[in-house]
């Protein structure tokens, strides 16, 4: 699965080069002006330079933005999720007014109508459980029961179809009646497998499933138009193709829940390991698929439960890192660039990551609260990094404080290249002059 005819014959380094060649060439994008095209190519090249630990002409300044454009443009978070026209107005205005070096995609906002059609129960969002100005939040529950690990491990997709999806989507609840598709191997087996599909409630669920599909198409057309226009007019490449996850988080965040996976660490550790192993190839494929589809090497992986305060160093090395490292290596093998969003702080394990099997110059790590001087000490010359401007500073600080913070950050850790300036947390609220101050300071002090 690649982007050239001879993909299987290429080495990981060649795949990496091919992906960037195609990304920087920006084929298929019809730029509004020559300037926009040149800017796009220049900024895409900046990303490549950073990943390869070189110095671009200055420190790139990237958005790490959630729902803030809604507030900025005077619409509610709910309107952003339900009214694609208002979404476009707000996100385009934001991109025009804030001079980031890369695209701030509106895809992250998601589609209220889509989730409503599915009766999505795993999240609350504005218009469905949170107030109109509060972004979506995950409702942690035991969506996979403690005795269902083997069902998942033996047949992940079948498990998702018949157990997991019926729990997280009310509209697909009848899918628990479906037979595994793997039964369909001989003529006499076809009929019995198809019977549940004919049941009235199952039929109705498929109807809703199809309507949800139509809504998803409507949504992605809107997103494509909005992001496409920004890219074409302003020449801003995106820093991410799509997502993947660390196996431990994938099970802990939205299948077992935090409490349950932590009990499982004592009660059934072997099952966690088996489930994580089953997940590794799927998570690699998920990232590679997104990179292929969007002609962008960067696969964003937000990481959660490996943080300092969540588990010990020993547990990090036992439960969290090995399977995650396999996902990272698998992505790199396919020429992708893992873009790891390191949420929380990782002061007590940054050395372990630095000393891992990951090859140098093939990944980018965005830090939240980890001590950046330590990051520089351990990651310098190995992995590109950035982040750390506190979300709170962009809401409650002053222009002087922001400027000072950015200046210190750049002076302390950006000197050797391989660095991107950006916020350490996803920005849902801010003061416009403070966000401008971050961007301006980055460009002012970031010249190499």
């Amino acid at each position, binding site marked *: 699965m690649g982007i050239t005819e001879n993909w299987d014959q290429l080495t990981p380094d060649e795949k990496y080069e091919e992906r960037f060649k195609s990304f920087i060439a920006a084929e298929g994008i019809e730029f509004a002006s020559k300037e926009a095209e040149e800017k796009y190519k220049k900024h895409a090249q900046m990303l490549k330079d950073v990943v390869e630990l070189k110095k671009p002409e200055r420190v790139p300044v990237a958005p790490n933005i959630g729902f803030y454009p809604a507030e900025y443009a005077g619409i509610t978070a709910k309107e952003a999720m339900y009214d694609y026209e208002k979404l476009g107005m707000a996100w385009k205005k934001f991109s025009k007014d804030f001079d980031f070096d890369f695209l701030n995609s509106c895809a992250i906002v998601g589609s209220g109508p889509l989730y409503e059609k599915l009766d999505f129960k795993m999240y609350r969002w504005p218009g469905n459980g949170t107030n109109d*100005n509060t972004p979506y939040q995950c*409702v942690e529950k035991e969506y996979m029961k403690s005795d269902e690990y083997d069902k998942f491990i033996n047949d992940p997709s079948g498990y998702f179809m018949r157990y997991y999806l019926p729990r997280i989507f009310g509209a697909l609840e009848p899918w628990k009646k479906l037979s595994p598709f793997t039964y369909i191997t001989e003529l006499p087996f076809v009929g019995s497998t198809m019977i549940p599909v004919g049941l009235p409630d199952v039929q109705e669920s498929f109807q809703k499933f199809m309507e949800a599909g139509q809504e998803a198409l409507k949504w992605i057309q809107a997103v494509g138009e909005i992001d496409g226009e920004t890219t074409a007019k302003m020449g801003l490449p995106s820093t991410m193709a799509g997502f993947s996850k660390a196996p431990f988080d994938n099970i802990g965040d939205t299948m077992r829940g935090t409490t349950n996976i932590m009990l499982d660490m004592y009660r059934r550790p072997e099952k966690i390991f088996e489930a994580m192993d089953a997940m590794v190839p799927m998570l690699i494929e998920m990232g590679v698929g997104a990179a292929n589809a969007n002609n962008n090497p960067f696969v964003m992986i937000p990481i959660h439960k490996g943080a300092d305060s969540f588990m*010990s160093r020993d547990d990090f090395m036992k439960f969290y890192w090995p399977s995650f490292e396999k996902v990272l290596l698998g992505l790199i093998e396919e020429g992708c660039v893992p873009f790891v969003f390191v949420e929380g702080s990782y002061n007590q394990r940054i050395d372990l990551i630095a000393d891992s099997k990951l090859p140098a110059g093939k990944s980018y790590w965005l830090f939240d609260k980890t001590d950046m001087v330590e990051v520089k000490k351990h990651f310098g010359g190995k992995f590109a990094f950035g982040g750390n401007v506190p979300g709170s500073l962009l809401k409650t600080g002053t222009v002087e404080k922001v400027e000072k913070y950015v200046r210190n950050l750049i002076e302390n850790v950006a000197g050797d290249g391989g660095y991107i300036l950006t916020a350490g947390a996803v920005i*849902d*609220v801010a003061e416009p002059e403070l966000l401008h101050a971050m961007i301006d300071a980055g460009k002012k002090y970031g010249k190499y």
Partner: protein
Amino acid sequence: MSEEKLINAIAEMEEEEALKEAQAMLDSGVSATDLMKSCRRAMEIVGERFADGEYFVPQLIMAGEIMTQISEMAKDELKEGEGEEEEKLGKILMGTVDGDIHDIGKGIVNFNLDVNEFKVIDLGEDVKAEEFIKAIKEHKPDIVGMSCLLTVAFDSMKNTIEAIDKAGLRDQVKIMIGGAPINDDVCEYSGADDWGKDAVEAVSIAKKWMEE
């Protein structure tokens, strides 16, 4: 069978062993109250190891789970509210503020306050200002703790503290805040008295205030 074995099993996260010991103690005539006292001692050890950076979230959750199961075993014998009369350092009202449903951090803080002899009343998540006010009037806490994970909750904290002030209750309580994005700036912005970066700091702040 011995108290020491029970305490050790809980502190070392040996779930089956701990439950077996607890049952054996009950069977041999140890009172439910004494059994729960032993569990408390074990929880204090877990709390100490957490403060020392030896234990983390999995250990707090596992210890809490063992404790819940043992309470369940002893519940017939335990009278309503028993064990509540013991001397407490102070009463703390906790809640994740309006608009935010994250509860893991708050749970850890509650655990640590509890093993450090504070009475904790948890109002849960997405707690509106009026719910804080109602609970302050009802429970008369010494301290109110507010938690959040989202940056949109900065304004919730600020508004909640303003509402407590307007209700004329601000000088009756000390207010501490916590959560991943909290720092000096947010503390000042919200109008809280202090903030802590983790569950250990929450205890030191609370202890300091109770000594004042």
